[in-house]
């Protein structure tokens, strides 16, 4: 077929573009990610029994704030990476600032603690399972977010895959806060960040293959 004919084929009978399609796609993906991860927490790990009392303490909400901030930052970056020619620019700060903040706070906590208590503050009681639990919880969100990004038009596939993985990981971590008994900032700074890094790495590896269009 000649190119001219293709042009008229594409142009005839065009309908107005739905401007909200990006927002709707990510809305559904986030909903699936949150519901999926929460369901997995309830089914496999169980909500921590003292959630009623602990959710009244500021430290619990400080803990939830980390993945919430990272999810927001990753969402902003992912949406930009999913559209051709859009600059990410300042949106990177949405990922960098929460990570820097929790590392700084974790470092201060460790330095101020007596030397004998430091290992317990960093390793907690669940460091062995924590990153893998988060990675497991991120599976439904990972699939949903990749499907959303696939329907758009990412041009930097590896970066877009990584940002999508981080979005899934951060959403999963919010849900994991319902279960996780660790209340040390230093623990979150290391193991939560590692847990979110796992789906990020998988996303970076899978991006060039799964997001190609």
């Amino acid at each position, binding site marked *: 077929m000649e*190119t001219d004919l*293709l*042009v008229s*084929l*594409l142009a*005839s009978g065009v309908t107005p573009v739905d401007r909200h399609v990006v927002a709707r796609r990510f809305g559904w993906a986030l909903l699936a990610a949150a519901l999926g991860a929460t369901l997995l927490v309830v089914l496999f790990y169980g909500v921590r029994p003292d959630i009623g009392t602990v959710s009244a303490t500021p430290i619990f909400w400080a803990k939830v704030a980390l993945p919430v901030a990272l999810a927001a930052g990753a969402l902003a970056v992912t949406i930009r990476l999913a559209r*051709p*020619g*859009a600059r990410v620019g300042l949106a990177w700060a949405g990922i960098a600032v929460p990570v820097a903040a929790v590392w700084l706070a974790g470092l201060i906590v460790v330095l101020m603690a007596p030397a004998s208590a430091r290992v317990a503050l960093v390793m907690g009681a669940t460091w062995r399972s924590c990153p893998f639990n988060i990675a497991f919880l991120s599976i439904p969100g990972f699939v949903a977010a990749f499907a959303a990004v696939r329907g758009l*038009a990412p041009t930097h596939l590896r970066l877009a895959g990584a940002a999508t993985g981080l979005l899934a990981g951060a959403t999963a971590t919010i849900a994991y806060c319902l279960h996780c008994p660790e209340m040390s900032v230093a623990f979150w700074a290391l193991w939560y960040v590692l847990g979110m890094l796992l789906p990020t790495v998988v996303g970076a590896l899978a991006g060039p293959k799964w997001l190609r269009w």
Partner: protein
Amino acid sequence: MAGDALAYQTFLSELTRHLRGFLRRRIPQLSDDVEDLVQEILLAVHNGRHTYRPDEPLTAWVHAIARYKLMDFFRARARRESLHDPIDDYIDIFAVCDDEPAAARRDIGKLLEQLPDKQRLPIQHVKLEGLSVAETAQLTGLSESAVKVGVHRGLKALAAKLRAIA
């Protein structure tokens, strides 16, 4: 983009010329592939038009798509060449460059025939014969939304077929 077919056709025609120039400058030794790539980018622009935001520069958006498709083409070619003897691929290095559109090697019309009926018929009636969605629905027995979905999915499938051949 707002559904004005005439303005959109003008835009696509100008884009075609622009893309032809852009690609001929970048891959002058592969002039045979230029028209195929032009068609592939046009389809990509059309299928991805929901990702354009009017508050951003159109050229940046179009160029990002064109660059992406060109990179994708290079990658596919590199993969192919690692399997074949590359000598005859460079014979056309002396090919003359002109402004006339070269014939595309992949025939989109033939690819269209390979689509399933519920995608092919909507594209044929709405896009090639210029019927309305309602008329097409009546003619094919599909619902109006099925016609719209058929056109949409069909064009996506067409883009995927083009890519598979590349």
